[in-house]
């Protein structure tokens, strides 16, 4: 048993002392962890446009694709056997992004949702999951990327201020397949996401990118686990966050496990946090556990810093006023990741939201 696996292994109702729960404000989880949540099935996730040929989105009775020890996910699975399944047919290459959005908002309850995204062998797609409004969501998302297939998953948490969202995004990546994910968390009261990747065949690769911006009172946790079970897989993690305001709190945990069989592994993970004010707290914990020395590379870096006054001086010495200069620097900080989304409308919307959060924080 690896110490890293125990990070997720908390099958009982957590009391907050467990490694996997030590940062999370349990009292603000809308009862998802202890079974007191008023859970409902809503099927709130719907495509915003007609699906292209070779893509289906249906309700099925389905087994989970993976085992988990996360208590919230297990409660969701015990609650419902119904799964919304998005399937991309074999060999299909879908160029247009498939956008799914939450359409039904019921504030007093908690939606327990199970979703599977399945890419059959040698298919390719970009899937966008949009979360907006004030809502409580327990999300069990499973992803299967078939042999030689490629999925880009963009998960947007643009929640309103009271939303509570606990989600597990687990990807199984087969031989020569690519799973790229980009997580954006800019809204909500509590957001706790567990992006995890399990390599099922050699030649598989993943890139996990993320940005988050927490303002006063918000708690955003991103806890990833990349499991190198097989040889010659590659993983890259890069999450960037900004914090501003009293009791803004972010947590980034990057667990990477290179098992004895995983020769030729190439992994690097990076987390950067930008503290824009006093009273905010960023926790950043990279963990690397290595059981074989026969690897290409393994590394991690984590930085948490304040706003760079030299950048501010440089921009202001060109006549740019202080608030515009700050906005430029923060936009620039996030741009590295946001520009990877590749969908201009979404990029512009997120940058506008970031501007918005920044001016809220300044007032």
């Amino acid at each position, binding site marked *: 048993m690896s110490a890293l696996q125990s990070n997720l292994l908390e099958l009982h109702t957590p009391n907050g002392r467990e490694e996997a729960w030590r940062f999370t404000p349990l009292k603000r989880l809308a009862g998802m962890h202890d079974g007191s949540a008023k859970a409902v099935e809503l099927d709130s996730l719907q495509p915003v446009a007609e699906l292209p040929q070779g893509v289906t989105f249906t309700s099925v009775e389905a087994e989970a694709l993976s085992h988990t020890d996360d208590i919230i996910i297990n409660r969701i699975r015990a609650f419902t056997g119904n799964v919304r399944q998005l399937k991309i047919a074999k060999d299909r290459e879908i160029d247009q992004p498939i956008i799914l959005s939450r359409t039904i908002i019921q504030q007093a309850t908690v939606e327990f949702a199970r979703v599977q995204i399945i890419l059959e062998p040698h298919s390719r797609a970009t899937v966008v999951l949009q979360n907006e409004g004030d809502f409580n969501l327990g999300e069990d998302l499973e992803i299967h990327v078939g042999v030689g297939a490629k999925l880009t998953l963009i998960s947007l948490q643009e929640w309103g201020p009271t939303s509570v969202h606990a989600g597990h995004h687990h990807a199984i990546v087969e031989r020569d397949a690519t799973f790229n994910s980009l997580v954006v968390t800019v809204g909500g009261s509590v957001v706790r996401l567990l992006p995890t990747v399990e390599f099922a065949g050699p030649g598989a690769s993943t890139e996990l990118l993320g940005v988050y911006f927490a303002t006063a009172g918000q708690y955003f946790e991103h806890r990833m686990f990349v499991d190198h079970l097989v040889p010659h897989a590659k993983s890259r993690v890069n999450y960037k966050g900004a914090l501003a305001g009293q009791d803004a709190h972010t947590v980034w945990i990057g667990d990477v496990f290179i098992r004895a069989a995983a020769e030729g592994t190439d992994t690097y993970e990076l987390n950067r946090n930008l503290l824009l004010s006093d009273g905010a707290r960023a926790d950043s914990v990279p963990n690397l556990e290595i059981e074989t020395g026969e690897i290409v590379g393994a590394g991690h870096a984590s930085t948490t810093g304040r706003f760079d006054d030299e950048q501010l001086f440089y921009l202001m010495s060109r*006549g740019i006023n202080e608030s515009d200069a700050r906005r430029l620097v923060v936009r620039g900080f996030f741009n590295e990741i946001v520009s990877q989304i590749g969908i201009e409308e979404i990029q512009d919307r997120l940058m506008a939201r970031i501007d918005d959060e920044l001016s809220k924080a300044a007032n």
Partner: protein
Amino acid sequence: MSTLEIRGLKVSVTTEGGDVEILKGVDLTIKSGETHAIMGPNGSGKSTLAYSIAGHPKYTITGGTVTLDGADVLEMTVDERARAGLFLAMQYPVEVPGVSVSNFLRTAATALRGEAPKLREWVGEVKSAMEALKMDASFASRNVNEGFSGGEKKRHEIMQLELLRPKIAILDETDSGLDVDALRVVSEGVNRAKEANGIGVLLITHYTRILRYIQPDFVHVFANGKIVEEGGPELAEKLEANGYAEYVGA
């Protein structure tokens, strides 16, 4: 016609060992169209003078005045100084990750001109400024100073000098880190900006070689936090021959 007037300027910095006075009473007047070279050994306070005029927060003004056409520069914020017409070409320009050169330049031009320059004209302006400085077109989409070579950073500074059209420009060791060819290209840029806009230039340098390309009207020798000798271009030749030894009390 603009005048930057520095009178009795004293500046100190806070270090672990307490406050240290770097500038010990500097007097200097720069008018439009004039080029003043400040020469001096390392550590004499030349860069402190440049950054103090630009308003860097690290430096504390303990005495004296700086005015631009009568307006009190020391009372202004950093951005107000730039909008009043001051420009500092930095020795070590700062990297701003994720902000493209074109976005940066347009934001700065908008701030300095009071309105966004018309897009089509602006694109042409930037293009010709880049061509004149022999910069590749891809430069505009790179992030500000990120991964730039020493020469690229200096070209970028001088491109800003040409585009932002200040009244008075301070060039802080613009010649450092440049090879012979780059030095010529950058110097030509400074001369163009002088010609086009009648800029007053304060050129800070350790070496005389840049003065072969940019003709100074006045040369000031800086040592131990103040100006210790003043003259015309012939003073630079004397420094070339004799060095700074006689000014640093060696």
